[in-house]
């Protein structure tokens, strides 16, 4: 095996360079990484046209994201690529922490059944991007993918943005109502605008190696898990992390000295013995090796009039916790329907501002968790090292100390509870939470809640309650028979998660925005208006 085959995407001469007048598009997406691509698909599914401009023409090269969380997979499910990713990916849910040569404890990230998607899959970023590009091609009239189109300048004119684009055939100009900066951690858009992007940079360096090997380093018949070592015998005084990926590829992260020479450390003669110390004498091939330093940073504001930052351009985290790409996909989920609602004229432009509020909050949570984990891994002073050593010592048999051991708090869906689009209320799943999946039985057989809730405002009624008919709002009944689609809760999972009775109003991104017991049309209209930013002054 020779690893992943990178197939370059075709460059097509843009119409602007073939004599057409400068195009004006509803949305320009700068960057065809996982975030830009997912956003284009989300918008296309809502009927919004976009042009996606990328300076490159291949998927992500080398060792980047591998862990995709349940919530991300549910969003990818809505975008039509979740099942394909699940099938190809390596499913896992157990994390195991070691200290020296002893296991100190393990955690189960999804201890309950009744979900379509697992806690995590591991899938190389190049596959994720490939699948997203292929899915984007399903919308030839709505997604205009332009590879080798580098955005070199932009000007915000108040109600539209003009862009300068460089291609192999020369440069051209175009205009868009909204400019979605999905141009990654090194965002040139951000730099052009002179926006401050400073935060914690960790001095420690990490060697990240992807290796291909026939035998599993987890041992024979072992199920893939996440293994993390503090001070292992094979890499004394430092930390190490092991993950399984598809195609018999394994990811190994090794902490290096603060002053290590990154270049020397990534040379095969230096890397091979380090890997052999972990996997033993079993044969393997080095697929990719790099040395990284990590940062935890976010922009103060994600929305600057018509320029909106999404994904790594808005926030960057260290990878322990897998909160980078997973956080970015939650950004996409949040901005997609809002942008569509504003462009289609149903919602005020202020709705876009709530993308900043909700996702800046989510991103701050990701940064807090990622930086704490990285700090625990890399004690800065003798006293920090002392506390950590004692925590690890106690963790062998003291449950309270196990809690303090932090090898990464893995990506969780972000709650939007208490934020202004949500109407306050009390229910087993409170307003602000994302849908909790559950198995259902319907007229066509078994299915899942996440497969039957459409990507628009939707009422879900549990038990014998009448859901009012409201224009633009879908209806689903659980454990009842009505003239709208109804399902029964299989094995009691849905009723356990949502209650026997009660009504939930779900936003187009699958977050609960209001709960009721017996709503009338007026109640639902009011909650929908609030969730679309039409009642900003009243909402506190």
């Amino acid at each position, binding site marked *: 095996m020779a690893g992943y085959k990178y197939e370059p995407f075709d460059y097509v001469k843009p119409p602007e360079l073939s004599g057409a007048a400068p195009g004006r598009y509803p949305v320009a997406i700068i960057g065809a990484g996982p975030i830009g691509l997912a956003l284009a698909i989300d918008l296309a599914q809502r009927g919004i046209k976009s042009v996606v401009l990328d300076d490159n023409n291949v998927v992500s090269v080398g060792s980047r994201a591998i862990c995709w969380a349940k919530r991300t997979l549910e969003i990818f499910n809505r975008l039509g690529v979740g099942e394909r990713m699940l099938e190809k990916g390596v499913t896992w849910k157990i994390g195991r922490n070691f200290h020296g040569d002893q296991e100190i404890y393990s955690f189960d990230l999804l201890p309950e059944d009744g979900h379509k998607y697992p806690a995590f899959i591991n899938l190389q970023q190049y596959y994720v991007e490939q699948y997203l590009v292929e899915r984007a091609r399903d919308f030839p009239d709505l997604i205009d993918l332009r590879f080798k189109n580098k955005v070199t300048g932009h000007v915000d004119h108040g109600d539209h943005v003009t862009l300068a684009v460089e291609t192999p055939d020369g440069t051209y100009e175009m205009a868009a109502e909204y400019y979605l900066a999905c141009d990654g951690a090194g965002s040139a858009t951000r730099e052009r605008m002179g926006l401050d992007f400073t935060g914690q940079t960790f001095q420690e360096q990490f060697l990240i190696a992807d290796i291909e090997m026939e035998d599993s380093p987890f041992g024979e018949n072992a199920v893939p898990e996440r293994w993390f070592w503090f001070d292992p015998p094979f890499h004394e005084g430092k930390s190490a992390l092991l993950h399984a990926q598809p195609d018999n590829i394994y990811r190994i992260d090794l902490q290096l000295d603060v002053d290590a020479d990154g270049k020397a450390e990534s040379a095969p003669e230096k890397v091979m013995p380090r890997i052999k110390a972990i996997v033993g004498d079993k044969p393997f091939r080095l697929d990719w090796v790099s040395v990284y330093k990590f940062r935890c940073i976010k922009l103060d504001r994600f929305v600057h009039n018509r320029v909106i930052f999404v994904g790594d351009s808005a926030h960057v985290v260290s990878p322990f916790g897998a909160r980078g790409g997973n956080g970015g996909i939650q950004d996409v989920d949040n901005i997609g329907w809002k942008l569509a609602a504003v462009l289609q004229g149903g919602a005020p432009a202020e709705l876009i501002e709530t993308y900043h509020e909700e996702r800046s909050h989510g991103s701050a949570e990701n940064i807090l*968790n990622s930086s704490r984990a990285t700090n625990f891994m890399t004690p800065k*002073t*003798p006293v*920090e090292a002392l506390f950590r050593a*004692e*925590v690890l010592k106690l963790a062998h048999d003291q*449950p*309270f100390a196990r809690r*303090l051991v932090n090898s990464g708090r893995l990506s969780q869906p972000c709650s939007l509870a208490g934020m202004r689009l949500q109407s306050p209320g009390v229910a087993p799943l409170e307003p602000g939470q994302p849908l909790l999946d559950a198995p259902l039985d319907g007229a066509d057989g078994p299915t899942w809640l996440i497969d039957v809730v459409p990507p628009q405002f939707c009422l879900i009624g549990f038990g014998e309650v009448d859901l009012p008919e409201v224009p633009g709002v879908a209806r689903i009944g659980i454990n009842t028979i009505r003239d709208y689609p109804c399902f029964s809760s299989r094995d009691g999972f849905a009723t356990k998660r949502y209650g026997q009775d009660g009504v939930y109003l779900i936003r187009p991104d699958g977050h609960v925005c209001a709960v009721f017991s017996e709503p009338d049309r007026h109640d639902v209209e009011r909650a929908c208006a609030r969730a679309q930013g039409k009642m900003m002054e009243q909402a506190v």
Partner: protein
Amino acid sequence: MSDNLGPYQDDFYNALMDAHAGLSEEASHALNARLVLMLSNRIGDIETLKDILEKAREYNDE
């Protein structure tokens, strides 16, 4: 020993590290000593305190 720090374990641990930030090793030792005394006063119960002292000491003898 019961497990009482969840779900705010990370908040606690970071507050503890922050309390030590910028101190010399000697000053950190002094802070730790004060912390032990103040936390002991908070616990109050002498049997519980003796138990904890003994338990913590066991890890030195390994």
